[in-house]
């Protein structure tokens, strides 16, 4: 391994062919900005922020469904904070919360069990969004609900998986020469899942951690491997080739692979998960939530998520669309591409 100073020098002075490297993990987008990495790279290396924020890729129909469920006074919608402000086709959960409907924020899905026991006459609906990283927690929640005989908790799922959307991007002309592969997702899936993709598209994948040095080391390795269909693990302290097989097992017990609609991108075959038929009693109606309307027609979240547009090039960016008044989901979440560019004043 080269020392960090040499790596920094190489990345700053790189003068080979232009390279677009996409990170498909919102935490990477955030870590890149927080470490000031864009300014440390040569003008020929571009970082693109892809569809790696679960909140950002949730279609409007999903938010609309949660809102319609909130109309029933018996229902309490329970969610992670980020989802509250994501616009549906017209309103957000925060808007209906302001209208007096029950929408509550929790830090862990398991908190919903405590809530549900306090008010057994109500139905608590958890907005279960997320990737491979979060899905095992929902599986454990289901396991707990079944074991404890809790009947007044349901999940509305919008669960997504990474490999299929990466293939979708590559098959749809996204201008990508390499992937900074997601560290958290890889802990569950193992880095092995990226191997077929690397081979098929002939581009390098580098699994990275979230510290500044870890990101630089991974970027260096990725640039060095330009044009090679290889997967390299730069996060070996946490990520293995096979991942967490127990987590995969518990996911499979409760969920089945399905198609999924990604905000702005449409249906991506096999890129989602849904609760298995035998546990459908716990599903609040997650099927068929395919409609995906934009709150503002000029919103370019779709192009941003596919790496075809930089956030700052969207006509709404920083003007009518800002973190206080987000027009698209990418401006809502802390890990959203547009939010991250905006708060960190990124111009790259």
């Amino acid at each position, binding site marked *: 391994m080269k020392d*960090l100073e040499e790596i*920094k020098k190489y990345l700053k002075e790189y003068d080979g062919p232009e390279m677009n490297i996409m990170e498909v993990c*919102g*935490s990477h987008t*955030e870590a890149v*900005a*927080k*470490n*000031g*990495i*864009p*300014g*440390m790279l040569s003008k020929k290396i571009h970082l693109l922020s892809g569809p790696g*924020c*679960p*909140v950002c890729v949730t279609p409007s129909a999903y938010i609309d469904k949660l809102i319609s469920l909130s109309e029933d006074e018996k229902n309490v919608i329970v969610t*992670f*904070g*980020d989802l509250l402000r994501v616009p549906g086709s017209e309103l957000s959960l*925060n*808007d209906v919360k*302001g209208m007096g409907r029950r929408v509550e924020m929790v*830090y*862990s899905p398991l908190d919903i069990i405590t809530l549900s026991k306090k008010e057994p006459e109500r139905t608590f609906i958890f907005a279960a*969004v*997320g*990737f491979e*990283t*979060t899905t095992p927690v929902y599986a454990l929640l289901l396991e707990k609900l079944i074991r404890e005989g809790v009947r007044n908790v349901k999940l509305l799922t919008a669960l997504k998986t990474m490999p299929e959307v990466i293939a979708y991007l590559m098959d749809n002309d996204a201008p990508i020469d390499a992937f900074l592969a997601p560290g*958290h997702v890889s802990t569950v899936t193992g880095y092995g899942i990226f191997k077929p993709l690397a081979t098929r598209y002939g581009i390098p994948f580098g699994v990275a951690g979230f510290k*500044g*040095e870890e990101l*630089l080391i991974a970027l260096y390795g990725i640039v060095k491997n330009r044009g090679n269909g290889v997967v390299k693990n730069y996060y070996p302290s946490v990520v293995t080739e096979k991942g967490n097989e127990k987590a995969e097992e518990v996911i499979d017990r409760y969920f089945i692979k399905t198609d999924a609609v990604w905000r702005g991108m449409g249906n991506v075959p096999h890129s989602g998960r849904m609760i298995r038929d035998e546990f459908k009693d716990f599903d609040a109606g997650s099927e068929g939530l395919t409609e995906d309307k934009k709150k503002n027609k000029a919103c370019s979240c779709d192009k941003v998520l596919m790496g075809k547009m930089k956030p700052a090039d969207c006509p709404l960016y920083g003007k009518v669309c800002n*973190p*206080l008044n987000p027009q698209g989901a990418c401006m809502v979440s*802390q*890990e959203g591409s547009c*939010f991250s560019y*905006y*708060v*960190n*004043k990124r111009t790259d």
Partner: protein
Amino acid sequence: MMVHGSGGRSTGDLIEEVFKDAFSNEYLDKLEDAAVVPGPAEGESIAFTTDSFVVTPVIYRGGNLGRLSICGTVNDLLMRGAVPKYLTCGFIIEEGADVETLKTIVKSMADTAKEAGVLLVAGDTKVIEGHGGIMVNTAGIGYVKKDINISSENAKPGDVIIVSGNLGDHHACILSERMKVDSDIESDNAPLSEMVSKLSSLPVHTMRDVTRGGLGTVLKELSVASETAFNIYEDKIPVSEKVRDFCGILGLDPVYMGNEGKMVTVLPKEYEEKALSLIRSSRYGENAVTIGEVTDDDKGRLFMKTKIGGVRELSVLEGEGLPRIC
């Protein structure tokens, strides 16, 4: 639709939009921690401020609503170079509030007032319908000696930026209490009277307590108010290991976390060592450290040199600093 304030941009916008125009006058318009208004005699001034306090839970590790409500107002007065003197308190208590909890809060207010050297000279109590919540407002005045001029506008190129101790403790404490995470992080809520009193011997340009919105928000506001650039260094920013780990797990940024007993001091570089030793020898100041300097390169901007040698531009806190979900 109102967005709940975290002391960052949404709160600032609300103040601009609703209150500033309606109440506009030369003292209020400065939007400082406390207003400094003319005193009864020529050359003397009075610093005057008010703040309302709501916190869940009302009793937390290292403090409670009562201590918080005294520290908040005392510190706001101190930040204008005033010696805090007299405070009032107003309680709004919802039906069903626990009397023992109320006693704890009041006892703590009395103790903290004593520690800060102020007297609580008037009060009011209202009981309203509700679910047992307790809210406190305190207002306070302090005396400002002749020729003291400490203000957000006064930072000058060549000044150093000193922070009085570890950041994020209060925020991490409250969040861990709310999340029922097993943790022993304590709030830093404290009156900063001793360190400010000691610093009064030095030509301090600016002092600010680093409360909601965190260091990033405060320094950005100071850079704008003083039309200078603030440069800080990530590796110098003091954060305890416990809080750093807590932030790491939840994806929180210590630079934007709230504190209730920390301040930033901006003063000419030649007084840096003296100021550091005065703060470090004061209660609550043992971890004081210089974190950067003021320049005139990019007026109104705040830059942080990151540990790995990158540069990150910081702005005021956007949104509410929620834990990430994946």
